[in-house]
């Protein structure tokens, strides 16, 4: 293997967060400045490297790094267009979340440990994105579980520990099932690199049963993280984690790793052709549809803001699965672009929810009355996110839904329209009351629970305020400029053209 | 049945009997005796096998000699260990304390 910049770049992208992470572990608790410098250097380097790779991939460069691991299964890191979609998202959101977390955790204990694991978590996520075959994917997928566990239990309270145990039980169980699926697949077809169109088409006839079982196992394994019903139980519990962790969990790291895995399996392992031949798409679509509706209904029942957002995540992430399982190019664009769009919108919502809790001690929906007067900026960002989720143009969410709907019509799956419409209605039903309370109700007569940052120029700490404003702005911008090639939509189109051989 | 068969059978019988002892006895000294009897049964089998031919098999005799050394060293150590353990038990729990 010759070492050139194309082979090293994927490794460097992972190291750009891994090395700062390890250094942060060794940083004394009091050295806040050193920690911030490490974090920010890592983020900046990573963004530069990702930009470099983005430029490279769009010019047709191949980025591939491999070392020996198992017989017939190397460890492969590969930067392709789909990987970049995910990496770009996670790097940008990592930047935002780091800023947010620095503000959020100011003066709280054990920050070195927190930021250490935080960086490891991002490294694992980037690894999931860059994984060039299923074994490598599994490796980073499990590392992601391990790196996020300490974040979930970070508070160390009995509830946090309980949530941590539930989280582990689900994700490690899922990981084991995924391993079974991957090992089964390996015994049939080995573990070559991901290729657009998959590598199983020629085997689909001969090993139909085994391949179906392997698919089922892998979807179950990935479905745990992607929170497909009925494997979603851990997600609402994991809400006890600190707000930046929830934000990261929901928008980037964990649920997206699952959804991203499903995209990889369907497009780059089985391929559209084999998936259709084995008639695996229909069950997957139904599963996704059930998840979308069920979770929306559950969200409606929640009175806790973060829990409502959690169920909303369960529902929204399944849009991706739904789009993938429709196996039409337009729906695929919708699915892949939603990976980014949902991330932007959901992280905005979680940042805002965190701001409400940190500034005014608000956790329940009933307590949101009049919030817009005390915290107009946060509330505005929240509104953008919520409307985007509902699908109001020109915010990002509208684009996703539009593509999903047209994609469904294209492949004559008209029932999907009903699901989308129903889901949008439910989205509206569970988000609009929050907006109404925030903007149009009067603040509580007795004042707020807490009132931090009162009388200052900004409504809350600037590090808490900036990230949601930026991500809200981004959710609008990616909608408005959807037509440009470097918008998530344009890039998704680029990916789909390769997958479908267009 | 000839003498060889008799002793062979006897060896296995002693082995089984003492195995039963090992499984059913509680007192460590008795258990140690049981293990030693198991050893004697094993050696009986070996020596009877050695006697199958007119001149006894020296290889088996040599193996039994080796086995005897192992047995006596281990027995001595075990016995001392048991004694030391019971002393400790006595000073520990004031003696006479039943332990399950």
């Amino acid at each position, binding site marked *: 293997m010759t070492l050139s910049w194309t082979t090293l770049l994927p490794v460097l992208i992972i190291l750009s967060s891994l090395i700062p992470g390890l250094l942060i572990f060794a940083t004394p608790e009091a050295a806040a400045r050193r920690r911030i410098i490490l974090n920010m250097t890592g983020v900046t380097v990573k963004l530069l490297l990702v930009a470099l790779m983005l430029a490279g991939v769009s010019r047709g460069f191949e980025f591939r790094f491999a070392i020996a691991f198992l017989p017939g299964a190397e460890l492969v890191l590969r930067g392709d267009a789909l990987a970049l979609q995910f990496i770009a998202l996670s790097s940008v959101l990592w930047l935002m979340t780091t800023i947010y977390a620095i503000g959020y955790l100011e003066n709280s204990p054990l920050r070195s440990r927190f930021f250490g694991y935080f960086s490891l978590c991002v490294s694992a996520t980037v690894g999931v994105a860059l994984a060039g075959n299923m074994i490598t994917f599994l490796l980073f997928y499990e590392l992601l579980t391990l790196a996020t566990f300490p974040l979930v239990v970070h508070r160390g309270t009995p509830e946090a520990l309980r949530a941590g145990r539930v989280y582990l039980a689900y994700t490690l169980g899922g990981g084991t099932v995924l391993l079974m699926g991957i090992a089964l697949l390996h015994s049939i077809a080995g573990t070559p690199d991901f290729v657009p169109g998959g590598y199983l088409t020629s085997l689909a006839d001969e090993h139909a049963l085994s391949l179906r079982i392997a698919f089922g196992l892998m979807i179950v394994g990935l479905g745990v993280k992607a929170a497909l019903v009925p494997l979603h139980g851990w997600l609402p519990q994991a809400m006890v984690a600190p707000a930046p962790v929830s934000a990261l969990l929901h928008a980037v790291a964990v649920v997206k790793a699952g959804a991203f895995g499903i995209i990889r399996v369907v497009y780059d392992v089985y391929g559209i052709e084999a998936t259709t031949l084995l008639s695996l798409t229909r069950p997957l679509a139904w599963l996704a549809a059930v998840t979308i509706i069920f979770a929306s209904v559950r969200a409606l029942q929640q009175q806790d803001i973060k829990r409502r957002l959690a169920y909303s995540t369960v529902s929204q992430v399944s849009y991706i699965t739904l789009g993938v399982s429709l196996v039409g190019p337009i729906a695929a664009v919708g699915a892949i672009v939603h990976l980014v769009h949902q991330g932007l919108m959901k992280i905005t919502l979680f940042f805002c929810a965190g701001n409400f809790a940190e500034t005014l001690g608000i956790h329940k929906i009933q307590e949101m009355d009049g919030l817009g007067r005390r915290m107009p900026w946060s509330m505005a960002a929240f509104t953008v996110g919520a409307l985007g989720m509902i699908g109001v143009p020109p915010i990002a969410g509208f684009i996703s839904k539009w593509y999903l709907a047209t994609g469904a019509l294209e492949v004559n799956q008209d029932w999907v329209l009903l699901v989308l419409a129903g889901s949008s209605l439910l989205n509206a039903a569970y988000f609009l009351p929050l907006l109404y309370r925030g903007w149009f109700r009067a603040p509580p007569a007795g004042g707020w629970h807490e009132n931090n940052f009162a009388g200052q120029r900004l409504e809350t700490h600037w590090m808490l305020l900036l990230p949601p404003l930026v991500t809200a702005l981004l959710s609008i911008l990616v909608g408005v400029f959807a037509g440009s090639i470097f918008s998530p939509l344009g890039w998704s189109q680029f990916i789909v053209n390769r997958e479908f051989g267009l | 049945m000839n003498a060889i068969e008799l*002793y062979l059978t006897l060896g296995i019988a002693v082995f089984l009997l003492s195995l039963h002892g090992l499984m059913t006895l509680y007192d460590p*000294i008795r258990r140690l005796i049981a293990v030693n009897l198991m050893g*004697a049964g094993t050696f009986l089998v070996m020596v009877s096998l050695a006697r*199958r031919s007119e001149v006894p098999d*020296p290889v088996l005799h040599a193996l039994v000699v080796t086995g005897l050394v192992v047995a006596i060293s281990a027995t001595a150590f075990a016995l001392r260990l048991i004694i030391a353990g019971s002393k400790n038990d006595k000073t520990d729990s004031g003696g006479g304390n039943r332990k399950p």
Partner: protein
Amino acid sequence: MTPELLPDLTLSLLLLIMAWGALYAPQRSDAMTLFIAFGVVVALIWARLDAPDLALAEAAIGAGLTGVLLMHAARALPDELHQDYRTASYWGALGFTVVASLMFLVHLLYDDSLFNAGLLDTESDLTPRLRTLADAAVPESGVEHPVTAVLLNFRAWDTLLELLVLLFALGGLRQLFPSGQSDDSATTASWPESMTLMSAWTRVLAPLLVVTGGYLLWRGSSAPGGAFQAGSLLAAAAVILRLTGLLPPLRWSSLWLRLSVVAGALFFLAVAAATAIWGDGWLTYPGAYSGLLIISIEIFATLSIAITLSLLVIGEQEDLRS
């Protein structure tokens, strides 16, 4: 069933009864006595089975060393705590034993395959190949007595490891007397005064044992006997002398004691290494010197076995740590 089997049958029955008693006698002291008696009967059986090497060894161990060991234990141990000395899983174990015995009996009486499958099959050639090879190789081994040839030449590696077994047991025993612990009177002065009555006898017996041991060692190259038998006899002598106070404590702090404990294994191992480096291979004795090498190894081994065994039996804090 022939009349000449009668002594064998008697011995067998006796052995079984003693085994039963050694396990299940109500008093533990009785059980111990029966166990010593069991050893004597076994020695008789060895003699019946033409195994004089073993009879000698068993006599030295069974009657001598084991006896002392058990007496020591009987005195040092509290009475059995449990009137009910059986474990909770008694009935399960009983069932297992009954089934195993029955299966064995069925094979023995009806199927007879245990003996016909080759163990005692008169049809086939009973001589093990290994034995044939050993018999043929005795003249080249440097000694005449086949058992010694096997022990110290053909299977010398086994014997080397066996010396290590003794050493390791002693190493284990030393752990029971942690250094720095003061001389605990409870562990040392436990030998009763009545022992001194024996001292007169001992003055006669011990030299006899030493002489016999030396003789056995020397004889081992051509006839039954050898390092182990000699070593155990010498150990017995040392134990008796020590018990009657005629032998001072063997102090671990003395280099000579430590040297005699490791001498056998160390010399043997050195021979092995030397043959590997300068000779034809690990433990391959140079033909002309094999007799000499074997006797030197035996002398060192006897010394080590004697000292180690006696320490294993009677070693106390002052012997093992001071």
